[in-house]
């Protein structure tokens, strides 16, 4: 029997092209297996083989989604795979977004099953979990040893057209799909036993978990910008030159608050970026490209805004946990409110 055909998607880093300086790499088709595809292939054994690998820069993909997808779909079409695999992306946000989007597009366009894998806090999970299978991994490539066999095993299952079990058993994120199944006990009995367990304080598992909606209502618009104090906040890691507080380049444990009252603009001499998740050259040369201090000063002088708040707040959004980001911003928000700030411009890279 001939082997099942797999096409694999990876980013420029795993493709061996380069790091952030190569994030603008355009989609490239390579025959055979590359990078993490080696580990997947070991698991595939004689049953399947990676016939081609698509390599694409995370920056290019996310900045040119439509063009990138069109090019990638064309590449995949040539190979007519039985299953499409992307990643694993771990906690790399842009890579996770790309893996999710590519899997979704491939499965919709060609009706081919697709699977990717990433860490639970990767924004790719919430964006694409309902559309594609996303297996859960650890947060860094250190988890590859566990992730690769799981991903390969699941892909093989899809390629063979075997039945996929529940999310909890298979290790993928819930997709919000409801499935009718027959069980021994009728609903009323199950509900009462659940209630009894709950009353006794015992563990029980609901059959219908409630979705968590945590959207915050938008605040009213600023009525008179010419009287408003506006603050600048960024997750792009702009810090004073030498990064005095040593904000981490990835997985930040803190944020910085810096006085800019006497600064007219950011320059190569007074600022840089601490962020390790994008090519830092442009921000190091001119941090106004990430946090527009120069323009805000002009607008302040011209009376278009009342005042630029005296401090700016900054952290690095690269792999930073949601819990940390939430805590930083709750603290920042309280300080800004306390100081009478009426509007915030938050920039992200």
């Amino acid at each position, binding site marked *: 029997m001939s082997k099942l055909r797999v096409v694999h998607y990876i980013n420029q880093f795993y493709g061996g092209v380069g790091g*952030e300086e190569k*994030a603008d790499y355009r989609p490239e088709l390579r025959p055979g297996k590359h990078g993490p595809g080696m580990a997947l292939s070991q698991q595939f054994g004689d049953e399947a083989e990676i016939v081609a690998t698509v390599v694409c820069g995370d*920056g290019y993909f*996310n*900045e040119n989604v439509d063009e990138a997808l069109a090019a990638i779909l064309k590449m995949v079409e040539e190979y007519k795979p039985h299953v499409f695999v992307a990643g694993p992306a771990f906690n790399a946000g*842009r890579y996770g*977004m790309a893996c999710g989007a590519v899997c979704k597009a491939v499965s919709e366009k060609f009706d081919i099953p697709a699977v990717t894998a990433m860490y639970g806090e990767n*924004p790719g999970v919430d*964006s694409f979990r309902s559309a594609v299978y996303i297996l859960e991994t650890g947060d860094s490539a250190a988890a590859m040893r566990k992730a690769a066999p799981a991903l390969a095993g699941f892909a093989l299952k899809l390629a063979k057209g075997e039945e996929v079990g529940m999310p909890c058993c298979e290790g993928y994120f819930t997709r919000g799909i409801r499935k009718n199944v027959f069980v021994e006990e009728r609903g009323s009995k199950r509900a009462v036993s659940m209630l009894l367990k709950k009353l006794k304080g015992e563990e029980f598992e609901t059959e219908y978990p409630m979705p968590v909606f*945590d*959207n*915050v*209502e*938008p*605040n*009213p*618009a*600023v009525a008179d*910008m010419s009287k408003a104090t*506006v603050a600048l*906040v960024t*997750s*792009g890691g702009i810090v004073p030159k030498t990064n005095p507080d040593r904000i981490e380049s990835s997985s930040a444990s803190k944020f910085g608050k810096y006085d800019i009252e006497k600064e007219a603009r950011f320059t190569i001499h007074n600022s840089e970026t601490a962020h390790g998740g*994008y*090519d*830092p*050259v*442009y*921000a190091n040369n*001119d941090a*106004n*490209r*990430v*946090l*527009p201090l*120069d*323009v*805000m000063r002009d*607008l302040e002088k011209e009376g278009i*805004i009342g005042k630029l708040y005296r401090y700016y707040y900054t*952290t690095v959004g690269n792999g930073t946990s949601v819990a940390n*980001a*939430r805590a*930083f*911003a*709750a603290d*920042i*928000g*309280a300080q*800004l*409110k306390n100081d009478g*700030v*009426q*509007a*915030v*411009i*938050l*920039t*992200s*890279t």
Partner: protein
Amino acid sequence: MVKEIERAGIPVVHVCTVVPISLTVGANRIVPAVAIPYPLGNPALEAGEEKKLRRKLVEKSLRALQTEVTGQTVFED
């Protein structure tokens, strides 16, 4: 982060390049930016032109902050 600042009671505009991420994290006022490593710039432009581009984005952000919204809104051109 945008969500927590909004929760503190201050209107906030998120200027970012990957709009789908901004939508996923729950920003209400979103202004699409230029590129990931330079959201408010473009190193290919001459300095004066680059600053003009930046000013346009900041002005759009201020407009977003002065616009009433009822849910997540992306401010395209």
